[in-house]
């Protein structure tokens, strides 16, 4: 009953029959999804349904978990991300990540942005890159006079935009966002959402969110995840994946209909 691969645009990330395990526990099963380029794709669903787990597979961040195993395929521009010849560090440079909790380094605003480019010995004009990245995350006007102050001195919303700027500075292809607004107030949330619309001109964005209004407002495509109890624990899977307006207005699955209308979850 899994519907997927609807968008008929060339996918930048695609996953086929991926099963994700932690040890022997099957966390998410049968993930088949195509993420189109220059779009915003939202992952929604109840807690524990594996949205973040799938997201973190796309830039191999789950490799840090010792018991993690992935069976199936996860492709980036058609290349298998889990092939032995692929360096996970290089993957993370192309596919950036913004975390749920704003996590600036305990360094100055400038050094936070310059951190990534310095990792790869960026040869260009660092000042210019820092400014461009901060402008890109709509933070420049607020911090241009205090670039040497600690990133931790900013408000939560500013910190999250700093983290987005930090991801942009690596000039990635894709930006993965794991509930980036869950720790922010409504005004900061709106700023980040506005920012997403600008960012998708240049980048492909995949965003995990618990906020259904956010998914319906901000995304082009939405994947609804659900979780079911099996004899081996709670396993998540994708119920339905389609254009956002279809998911919210005319979903094909009963479970999706119940979730987006607020009857469970």
């Amino acid at each position: 009953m899994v519907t997927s691969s609807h968008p008929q645009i060339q996918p930048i990330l695609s996953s086929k029959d991926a099963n994700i395990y932690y040890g022997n526990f099957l966390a998410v099963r049968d993930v088949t999804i195509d993420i189109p380029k220059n779009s915003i794709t939202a992952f929604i669903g109840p807690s524990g349904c594996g949205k973040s787990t799938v997201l973190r597979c796309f830039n191999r961040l789950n490799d840090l978990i010792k018991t993690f195993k992935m069976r199936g395929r996860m492709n980036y521009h058609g290349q298998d991300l889990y092939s032995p010849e692929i360096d996970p560090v290089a993957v993370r440079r192309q596919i950036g990540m913004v975390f749920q909790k704003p996590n600036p380094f305990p360094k100055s605003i400038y050094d936070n942005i310059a951190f990534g480019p310095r990792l790869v010995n960026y040869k260009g004009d660092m000042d210019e890159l820092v400014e461009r990245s901060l402008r890109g995350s709509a933070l420049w006007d607020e911090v241009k006079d205090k670039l040497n102050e600690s990133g931790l001195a900013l408000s939560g919303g500013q910190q999250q935009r700093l983290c987005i700027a930090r991801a942009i500075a690596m000039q990635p292809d894709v930006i993965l966002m794991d509930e980036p607004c869950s720790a922010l107030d409504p005004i900061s949330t709106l700023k980040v959402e506005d920012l997403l619309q600008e960012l998708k001109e240049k980048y492909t964005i995949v965003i995990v969110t618990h906020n259904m209004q956010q998914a319906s407002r901000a995304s082009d495509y939405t994947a609804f995840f659900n979780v079911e109890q099996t004899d081996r624990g709670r396993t998540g899977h994708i119920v339905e994946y389609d254009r956002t307006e279809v998911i919210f207005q005319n979903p094909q699955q009963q479970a999706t209909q119940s979730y987006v209308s607020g009857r469970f979850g």
Partner: protein
Amino acid sequence: MNSTPFPTPEDSSNQGLINRLKRQPSSPRTLFNTVMTVIVFVCAAIAIVPLVAVLWYVLEKGGSRLSLELFTQLPPPPNALGGGFGNAFIGTLMTVGIGSAIAIPCGILAAIFLSEFAAGTRLANWIGFLTNVLSGVPSIVVGVFAYSMVVLTMGGFSAIAGGFALAVLMLPIIVRTATESLALVPQEARQAAVGLGATRFQTVARVVLPAALPPILTGVMLAVARASGETAPLIFTALFNNFWPKGVSEPIATLSVLVYNFATTPYKNQQELAAAGSLILVLMVTIASIGSRLIVKRK
């Protein structure tokens, strides 16, 4: 009569409730509280007594001899007047310096291994356990170990042997405090670095280590302070020397061994020098720990 639905204090039905809020100075609970508070303060005062007493004793006995001469002159022969312990002061700096040069890099790198690369593995647990055992080994045993490892193989007492013994004593302190400091760095910081495409080494060197540096420095200072006061492991490794140090492979005087040697002599001048030496040792340790506090505060 009431315009609000809420009960007011005048309501007699609430009087019992209100009475329960009032202070009851003679209740067993209050008395027990007072007694325990007094006991806690008395115990805190008792804990401070030895510290104040030691400082007072050292200042009173050694304060009068405090002068530049102490650092520029050699220990006098018995019955002679004046003199100093410049050689022992330099010797302490040398042995502690050699010990630090071995123990600080080894200890911090070991801590990085334990907390960043092998955390949770059986190997790391064993190394952590053995480090704790090492920190409990009496310093005299460490001295015997350094004697057989360095003195016997090098064919004589030396500053190197003393420094080696001190390094063995410093190592567990540094490893333990540095491991704890690294563990305190939030996991989010590591994830942020890895998410930006940092390698493991870049994550440790550019994010984790800088964030953990202040508490690591405190641990290092603690180890240096401990080492500079050690006597037992130096007696049969660095030995003693009445003259200025000529190199690291010669027997060398240290302040702690000088205090040990001179405090028990029958000569008044030597006894005074021992007291002055104690004072300098206490001052060195105090300055080291204040210095580490300042470094931590400034960060």
